[in-house]
């Protein structure tokens, strides 16, 4: 079962109706204040200040609180106070489902335990990202979910190599990529050989052989695998409180010459060693802060 939210899990399980979930989400939306709404409620900023911060965020990639501090509207201490108050008053979806009468208080605990067990396979283990790279926990999660999807979707045995900072991705016949925006700005690239592409295609197409498939279908399968991984990354990021939008997957047409890490980006490469001696790479171009 892929990465998902508790509400979706409950609907799929048949424990609640879609209508009940929508009622609970409505209650959450009314109860949980965004950071800007919270600082207004606390009397720290006015609506016009909020609009100015939002405008400034369009030209500089900073969280709302950091930008508000930079612009002199609030102090670091006040950011922490607002965050604490936001955290303490947060209504979780499970609690909201109880409040709208969709489930009982007693059953919530059991459903949460079931959900935790269902999602256990998607909880990250430690992956080392070089120091000084921004948003390290996110890249750890990206690598971890990629490895898990390789196992679950493609069904291959592999050994991940250590993450290194690179200047250029080596030449590969196939490189598929997707973009991340929102809480982070980055490109996700998966570079594979033709034989690895065929392994991915077999899994995606659920075929024993892909010998007679067109290159278009085979490449499309790699794009789809990247799409599945990145979709699950966006879902996992949302669970962790980050908002990541993804762009549709694309094939790089310059893969045969290797790809240089763009300016003002850091290239993180995660080599993956297959049992038959093949190697392929996950690379993330992380935009500098």
């Amino acid at each position, binding site marked *: *079962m*892929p*990465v*998902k*939210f508790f*509400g*979706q*899990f409950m*609907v*799929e399980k048949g424990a609640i109706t*879609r209508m009940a*979930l*929508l009622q609970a*989400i409505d209650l959450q939306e009314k109860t949980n204040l965004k950071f800007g709404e919270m600082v207004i409620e606390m009397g720290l900023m006015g609506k016009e200040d909020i609009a100015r911060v939002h405008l400034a965020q369009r030209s500089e990639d900073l969280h709302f609180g950091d930008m508000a501090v930079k612009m002199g509207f609030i102090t670091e201490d006040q950011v922490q106070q607002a965050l604490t108050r936001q955290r303490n008053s947060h209504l979780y979806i499970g609690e909201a489902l109880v409040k709208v009468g969709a489930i009982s208080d007693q059953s919530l605990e059991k459903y949460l335990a079931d959900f935790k067990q269902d999602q256990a396979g998607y909880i990250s283990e430690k992956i080392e990202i070089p120091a000084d790279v921004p948003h390290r926990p996110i890249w750890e999660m990206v690598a971890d979910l990629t490895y898990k*999807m390789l196992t*679950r*979707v493609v069904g291959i045995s592999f050994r991940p190599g250590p993450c290194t900072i690179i200047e250029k991705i080596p030449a590969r016949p196939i490189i598929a990529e997707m973009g991340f925006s929102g809480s982070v700005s980055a490109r996700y690239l998966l570079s594979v050989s033709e034989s690895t592409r065929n392994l991915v*295609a077999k899994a*995606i*197409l*659920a075929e024993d052989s892909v010998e007679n498939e067109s290159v*278009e*279908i085979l490449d*499309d*399968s790699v*794009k*789809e695998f990247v*799409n*599945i991984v*990145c*979709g*699950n990354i*966006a*879902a*996992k990021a*949302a669970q962790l409180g980050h908002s990541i939008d*993804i762009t*549709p997957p694309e094939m790089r047409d310059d893969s045969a010459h290797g790809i240089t890490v763009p300016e003002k980006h850091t290239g993180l490469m995660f080599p993956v060693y297959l049992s038959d001696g093949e190697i392929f790479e996950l690379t993330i171009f992380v935009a500098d802060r």
Partner: protein
Amino acid sequence: MKSVLIVDDSIAVSRQLEKIIDDGKEFKVIAQGRNGAEAIKLCQQHKPDIVCLDMNMPVMDGLTALRSLMQLMPDLPVVMVTSLGGVGDKYTEAIRLGARDVISKPFEKESVLDMLRRL
């Protein structure tokens, strides 16, 4: 047997989904589209019993197509297909617009069939 329309810009995904759904007994895939505009055209043309509609497509995305489909055929059972798991905003918007459910990738055959049987 219920007729199903699959709309996804990825040929690989459409093939994968057709393989799961088209069992020759309960469900029959009658047509495939590659974007939201084709979804609307094919729905009017074939009047399927169920539509599996990708969320993220070029030309016209799935949510835009869903909005139009619900105006044209409010009772049409549409399930959205997405790799975004349960990403809150999109999931909620799809359900609010009238989608009956959301199929998450990677597909699990029995989950997909169970969902379609419930429609």
